[in-house]
């Protein structure tokens, strides 16, 4: 290794150094370092987790039989449906509003920039519950006015009933609030796209709309998705506030039922918790696949899906068992 460069020719003719009799460790397997501290910590955490689960199951305070009774009750499921509806409408309208606000903030027009900034500033400052109550009272005072506002066909079905108005108020309130936050998420996403992409798109003479829809926005979505999902999970839970504009969502239904059956308040809260956990999990799963979709081209290989991971894990495990058996 430390031979002078002049000796290179003779070395090449000599037998390669790998054949020298010195005992090289290359063939031996490296034993992993033992970590006793980690085993102790694991044991402690497992014991604590087991205690928690045991308490959850055995404590009569939780009344799991009543939980089972309420979990699929039609009234609870109706509430769940309202929660879902409010969430979906507000998420879509909020995102659309957010995109428009973000474009306005990034535009060259100082008026649009200012209007967008003021909107975002105001709606992020006012608590959501205040917005909702304000809209609620507003619509109660100006019933005729609110009927004149055109809404998408989705709302027309409810038009006659009292519920429709509450639903509309709830969706508008949540959307207004959501749009302000979504605007910043979208703006951040658009700013994260490399300047070179804008330049390449305009050097090719791609029309402005095409540049945004096909070049910039799809790339922005990669950083928008995790942030907006975060926002969305917040929104799922914020929908519980619509109870205060007399819309019976999941939380509102449980609250009402709890007032009628005071003994069941804890299992009802557990039911609500479980459903919110399920909703959040569904959103997280969707997030994984959406992110994976928009990772195309951004990473050389796509992250594996859980199923692919499981399969790879099993193969790896089998290979390891075989190796251990051989040793």
């Amino acid at each position, binding site marked *: 290794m430390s031979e002078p460069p002049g000796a290179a020719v003779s070395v090449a003719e000599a037998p390669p150094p790998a054949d020298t009799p010195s005992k090289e460790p290359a063939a031996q397997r490296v034993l992993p370092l033992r970590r006793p501290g980690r085993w102790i910590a694991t044991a402690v955490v497992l014991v604590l987790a087991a205690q928690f689960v045991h308490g959850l199951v055995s404590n009569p305070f939780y009344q799991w039989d009543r939980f089972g009774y309420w979990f699929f009750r039609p009234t609870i499921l109706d509430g769940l449906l309202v929660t879902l509806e409010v969430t979906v409408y507000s998420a879509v309208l909020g995102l659309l509003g957010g995109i428009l606000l973000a474009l306005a903030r990034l535009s060259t027009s100082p008026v649009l920039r200012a209007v967008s900034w003021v909107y975002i500033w105001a709606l992020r400052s006012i608590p959501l519950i205040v917005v909702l109550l304000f809209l609620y009272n507003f619509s109660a005072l100006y019933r005729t006015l609110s009927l004149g506002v055109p809404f998408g066909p989705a709302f027309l079905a409810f038009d006659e009933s009292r519920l429709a108005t509450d639903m509309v108020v709830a969706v508008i309130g949540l959307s207004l609030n959501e749009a302000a936050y979504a605007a910043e998420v979208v703006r951040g996403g658009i700013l994260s796209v*490399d300047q*070179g*992409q804008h*330049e*390449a*798109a*305009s*050097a*090719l*003479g*791609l*029309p*402005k709309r*095409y540049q945004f829809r*096909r*070049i910039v926005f*799809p*790339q922005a979505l990669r950083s928008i998705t995790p942030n907006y999902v975060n926002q969305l999970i917040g929104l799922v839970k914020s929908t519980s506030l619509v109870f205060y504009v007399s819309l019976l969502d999941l939380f509102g239904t449980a609250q009402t039922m709890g007032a009628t059956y005071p003994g069941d308040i804890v299992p009802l809260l557990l039911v609500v918790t479980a459903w919110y956990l399920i909703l959040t999990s569904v959103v997280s799963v969707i997030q994984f696949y959406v992110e994976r979709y*928009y990772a*195309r*081209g*951004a*990473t*050389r290989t796509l992250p594996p899906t859980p199923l692919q991971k499981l399969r790879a894990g099993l193969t790896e495990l089998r290979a390891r068992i075989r190796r251990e058996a051989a040793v």
Partner: protein
Amino acid sequence: MTAGSTELAHETADAAPGDTELTRPAPAAVEVRDVHKWYGTHRVLNGVDLTVRPGEVTVILGPSGSGKSTLLRVINHLEKPEIGHVSVNGELIGVRRHGDRLKELNERTILAQRSRIGFVFQNFNLFPHLTVLDNVAAAPVATGRLGGEQARELARELLDRVGLADKADAYPRQLSGGQQQRVAIARALALRPGVILFDEPTSALDPELVGEVLTVIKDLARTGTTLVIVTHEIGFAREIADRVVFIDGGRIVEQGPPSEVLDRPRHERTRDFLAKVL
């Protein structure tokens, strides 16, 4: 538009009195007239005049910060000149005549003009979320020139021409730098531009990948496409340039055939620069 171009053809003939007998009928491929560009108090271009004849290969050399990239970006109006104007194949770029003044064109028209000028970036700037084939096929479809199927067919042809037919379905980040730059050249060619501008096309490449990109550019030069190339590859310039332009301090210091500018430079600054890079 038509009135503007007649005026221009007239002006072009006036502006190049030296070669009237040769170039009177055809307008210059690129005509840069007294272009000044500054950012705040920093002056980047100080009155640049440049005429590129159709089919000519022009190489722009100069020290870093001399304004050569800015000059290139002024030609397709990625940068707006503060004073002066540029025309490509007889058409004013980014502005129109209004009496004796120049008025800025609307964005849509400028984009249409850019689609007739190819531009190849130092950092390729391929669209990472589109496959190689879609990168090349996007512009002809987006500008409404070709249908999807025709565009993809053209894209396959062009990828074949730059030797990357087998990479059509890959994403840009799965390719080497040299391959990416060849895709970028195919992407620029997809709009069948009259002029192609190259902004240091090999500066971001590992040395062993430079050759493959230069080969593609040489092939283009042979087909008679008008090329304007900013580069540091002096040997390449000597080989393919019809004309070398040396620029420093936002001004053209000297220009001429490579045998003159590279081998017998008349100006001290050119000599200094060549001594440093050769």
